[in-house]
């Protein structure tokens, strides 16, 4: 009796995870902006990867054709689930912060943007560049360089 309940719960988790994955893929394809795309991506990683992995672990616990190897399979599945649950939000957050602070791409219209005062302004950057500017002509031209030669 308990085996049927575990199998049905695991199978429903796998099917629900697959549907989450399709919804996240459609969202990643159709959204117009990077920040909205990152919303769809987090749906795809937590709902589409963690949920079916835990469901597969529950199925593997009672799947008798595997023999006595089914406990190892369940251990692998739960390990992968916990790892993705820890890793996926960290990776998405670091990627979005890189896009925001590195000013990559086109910035969308935001209603309120409280992080904007942390960004370096144009005048600060100009002062920094002026302080560290090297006097030209003092050092020799390198014989060989990977950088683009001015035309």
């Amino acid at each position, binding site marked *: 009796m308990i085996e049927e309940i575990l199998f049905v719960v695991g199978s429903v988790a796998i099917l629900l995870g697959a549907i989450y*994955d399709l919804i996240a893929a459609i969202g990643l394809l159709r959204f117009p902006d990077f920040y909205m795309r990152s919303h769809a991506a987090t749906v*795809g*990683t937590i709902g589409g990867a963690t949920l079916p*992995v835990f469901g597969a672990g529950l199925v593997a616990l009672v*799947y008798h054709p595997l023999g006595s190897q089914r406990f190892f399979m369940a251990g692998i599945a739960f390990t*992968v689930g916990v790892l993705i649950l820890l*890793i996926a939000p960290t990776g998405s957050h670091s*990627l979005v912060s890189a896009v925001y602070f590195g000013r990559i791409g086109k910035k969308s219209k935001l209603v309120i943007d409280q992080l904007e005062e942390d960004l370096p302004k144009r005048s600060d950057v100009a002062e920094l560049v002026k302080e560290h500017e090297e006097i030209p002509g003092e050092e020799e031209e390198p014989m060989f360089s990977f950088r683009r030669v001015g035309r």
Partner: protein
Amino acid sequence: MNFEVAFLDVLYFSAVIYALAFILYGIRAIKGPTTADIILAVDCLSFDMAAFMVVLGIYFKSIMLASGAIILALWAFMLDLYYTKYVLYGEVEV
């Protein structure tokens, strides 16, 4: 209740949907206007492939196959960190 027959139905339904999702992620990675979009698509793609590898490992009845999922999830996370360190600080210490 025969578990093997019931699991085959679950696998056929979910494998079709996973293949559709892989195709859509691939199209986003081809179209992506900036590099960050491609990295985001790789992130989603590798985590979902890790989940699909565990489900296929039950179908193939082999635990040696399913251990590749751990490695895939961990290395895809390193790619995010390399890209972030290159964009924000300009250099990478390996």
